[in-house]
């Protein structure tokens, strides 16, 4: 970066997807493909309609505020942000500002980046309503009000991030928090996550804790994917460094730009002097209401174990490697699946192996999520139990699993239909071992001389049993029978 460092702040918008209804209207809170099928008069801004706050949404917003170590307000207020735009039929958005304080203010979040722990200060987190979605065509645009009124959490960080990769690592941590806390699916494909990014650069040697040393802030709006965030930041840093180098930096005004996904560049939108005055005032239709200590306590207690805590448990209690633990907690659904397997009696290490070495590979290859997997935790435990009880060998179990997924039948049925079942009966195996040893007296002598003929005997037993003999039992019996001669 040629003597400069970047200061990056994020505004992360994440829809709350886990409420039944929208934040102020009774319309369902669900993603609908068909435009304008999930709307109520309020979502269309009809006169005489009034907002009614969704308590669950407030609860989830407070939960997020607590996870981010923010201060929660004593009273809940909403504000009106007034602006004319077709995505906002009332032509104002009900949101929260910093005065009076929103659901959360002045917190911090520690996340991991390249093995090191980093902390980002959170300026505030607030609850608001999402706008309608617009699609622009060459001669016209369309408006879909399905999204209007979906509860939205906006998180604003201080400029504590220093690279595109750090920003993405932070966003991934936040996504995981929203998923683990049951607040949102946080799916960018469904447009549930959208970001605005602030980027400025400053002299590497100067003290960044003094805002006077900061460079000119450029805000990039509407970045809708994590890869977009990475590209936009990298592009913007480069653009600003270039401006420093060619001497135009000092003329650069504080400005808002937008990320253009087609050209991979940022485009000028407006400078600070043209900033919109949103003429905020307290929303009069929503009376302020007290957030009681008891309610806060209840919400706090309802915060589930997040990815980090689960990872610690997997390493300390289940003895998994850090790598495997990370793989398992990366996706909450996978971690939930894993924990279900353990709850059903599956052995933690074995279950982790199944997941990391077989099942995740299968899901990746077939582009499936674990929720779409035919094999339920119960079935996996059944399969593991059959191996443990010696009914099938671990080699057989992999074949069984393939058939289970292929034929969509329970493991027990597959085992039955394949006829694969392990022989663990001492007498049956001993009879075969005795017969094999009787046929090869010369090899017993060779074995005693130190040559490895043991595997040959095992192989012969397997051949005679079509691979169904319990391998460890077979080895034990062979050893015993050789010693006896």
């Amino acid at each position, binding site marked *: 970066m040629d003597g400069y460092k970047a200061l990056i702040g994020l505004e992360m918008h994440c829809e709350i997807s886990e409420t039944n209804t929208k934040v102020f209207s009774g319309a369902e809170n669900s993603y609908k493909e068909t435009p304008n099928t999930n709307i109520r008069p309020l979502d269309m801004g009809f*006169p005489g309609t*009034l907002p009614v706050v969704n308590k669950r949404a407030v609860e989830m917003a407070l939960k997020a505020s607590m996870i981010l170590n923010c201060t929660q307000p004593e009273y809940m207020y909403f504000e009106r942000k*007034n602006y*004319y735009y*077709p995505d906002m039929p009332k032509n104002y958005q009900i949101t929260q500002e910093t005065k009076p304080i929103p659901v959360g203010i002045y917190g911090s979040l520690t996340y991991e980046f390249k093995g090191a722990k980093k902390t980002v200060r959170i300026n505030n987190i607030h609850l608001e309503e999402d706008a309608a979605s617009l699609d622009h065509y060459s001669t016209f645009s369309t408006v879909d009000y399905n999204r209007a009124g979906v509860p939205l959490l906006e998180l604003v960080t201080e400029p504590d991030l220093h690279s595109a990769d750090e920003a993405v690592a932070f966003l991934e941590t936040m996504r995981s928090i929203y998923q683990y806390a049951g607040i949102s699916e946080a799916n960018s494909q469904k447009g549930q996550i959208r970001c605005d990014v602030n980027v400025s650069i400053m002299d590497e040697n100067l003290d960044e804790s003094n805002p006077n040393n900061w460079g000119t802030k450029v805000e990039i709006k509407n970045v809708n994917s994590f890869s977009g965030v990475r590209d936009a930041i990298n592009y913007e840093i480069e653009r600003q460094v270039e401006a420093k180098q060619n001497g135009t930096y000092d003329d650069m005004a504080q400005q808002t730009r937008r990320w253009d996904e087609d050209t991979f560049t940022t485009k000028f939108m407006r400078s600070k002097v043209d900033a919109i005055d949103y*003429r*905020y*005032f307290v929303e*009069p239709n929503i009376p302020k209401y007290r957030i009681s200590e008891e309610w806060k306590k209840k919400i706090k207690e309802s915060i589930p174990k997040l990815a980090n805590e689960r990872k610690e448990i997997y390493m300390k209690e289940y003895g998994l490697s850090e790598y495997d633990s990370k793989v398992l907690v990366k996706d909450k659904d996978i971690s939930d699946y894993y924990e279900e397997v353990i709850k059903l009696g599956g052995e933690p290490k074995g279950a982790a192996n199944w997941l990391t070495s077989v099942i995740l590979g299968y899901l990746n290859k077939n582009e499936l999520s674990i929720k779409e997997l035919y094999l339920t935790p119960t079935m996996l435990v059944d399969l593991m139990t059959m191996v443990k009880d010696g009914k099938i060998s671990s080699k057989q179990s992999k074949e069984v699993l393939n058939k289970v997924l292929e034929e969509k039948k329970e493991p027990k049925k597959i085992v039955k239909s394949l006829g694969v079942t392990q022989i663990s009966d001492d007498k049956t195996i001993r009879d075969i071992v005795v017969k094999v040893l009787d046929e090869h007296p010369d090899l017993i002598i060779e074995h005693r001389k130190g040559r490895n003929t043991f595997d040959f005997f095992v192989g012969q037993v397997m051949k005679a049993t079509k691979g169904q003999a319990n391998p460890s039992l077979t080895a034990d019996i062979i050893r015993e029978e050789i010693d006896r001669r």
Partner: protein
Amino acid sequence: MGGSGKTAHTGLIRNPWDLERMCAGSSSGSAASVAAGVYPYATGSDTGDSIRKPAAYCGIVGYKPTYGMISRYGLFPFASSLDHLGCLTRSVRDAAIVVDAMKGIDNKDMTTWDSSDIHLYESLNDNVKGKKLCYIKEICDISNYPDASSELKEHLANFNKTLELCKKMGMSVDEVSVDMKLLNALNSVYVVISCAEATSNMSNLTGIIFGPRSKGDNYVEMMKNYRTEGFSSLIKRRFIIGSYVLQAENKDRYFNNAQRVRRLLVDTWKDLFKKYDAVILPVGSGPAKYLDDSKNKDYTNSHILEEHLQIGNFGGFPSITIPNGFVSHLPVGVNITGNCYDDINVLNIAYALEGQMDYKNQLAKEVK
């Protein structure tokens, strides 16, 4: 919208007692038709005095219960924090019956509250002995209006007669004093807050999602044309004021200060309600004004008489106007305002007082 009845959808609204005079507004047509006996009652909304002033000008009862007693769901809003629903009737009894039917908690309006244990009609009784009333010197004393017209003098003399009547009925009536500075700020506070909220509330009126769409090359043009054609210059002026007072550089000076003074006024009245059951005041500066504005005269300080009903909206107080006599053969009214949730008390005082006067159920008789 507006306080004159000149901008009504159906044309000019004339006062049934005198066709040269106005009904005031905004419930001008409602007041006129109830006074004329066309309907037994009309519902209305009251943001500053829109039920209570027309009721006084038309010689009928106008009642605005406590904020949130009646749901605003379905009401075209003007200024949400000041908008009240209520009714215009020819008797206090009818007002109680109508509001009993309208009130109740509504899960579509978060500002409504549970009034299921309040039964206005059943609670009506004229036993008001021992009730404590007060009136405000700065509003009621004739010496505050050095250039008062004869109508204003008569109006205040008539009000004093009503106070005497109250005393005769066993109520105590005290004179109290309120800082003139606060009273002088009334209308500015009202204009700033109501215009700010109204501007925002009505920004959904673009003619695009609902209403007749205007022509235009793009949606901005369509919106501009619709709003230019559809709103009167009075309303446009309010929108401009509303936007101006909320702009970042003006907000603290105008909007936030208006909120502060609103709080001071409401606290002043709440202090009165600690000691008194209700505040009793004359409505307006006399009988209905002329439609032809050149015939109307303003007197020093009379604006306070015209504006004090707004305090009922600032505080969400239950407030009722009943006719209390005639000036220049035209009806005039008296207002009784009490503390929030104290509707029964306010109605009972009005009910008892009404029973001692001759204006209950009166119909407008055209005098000219």
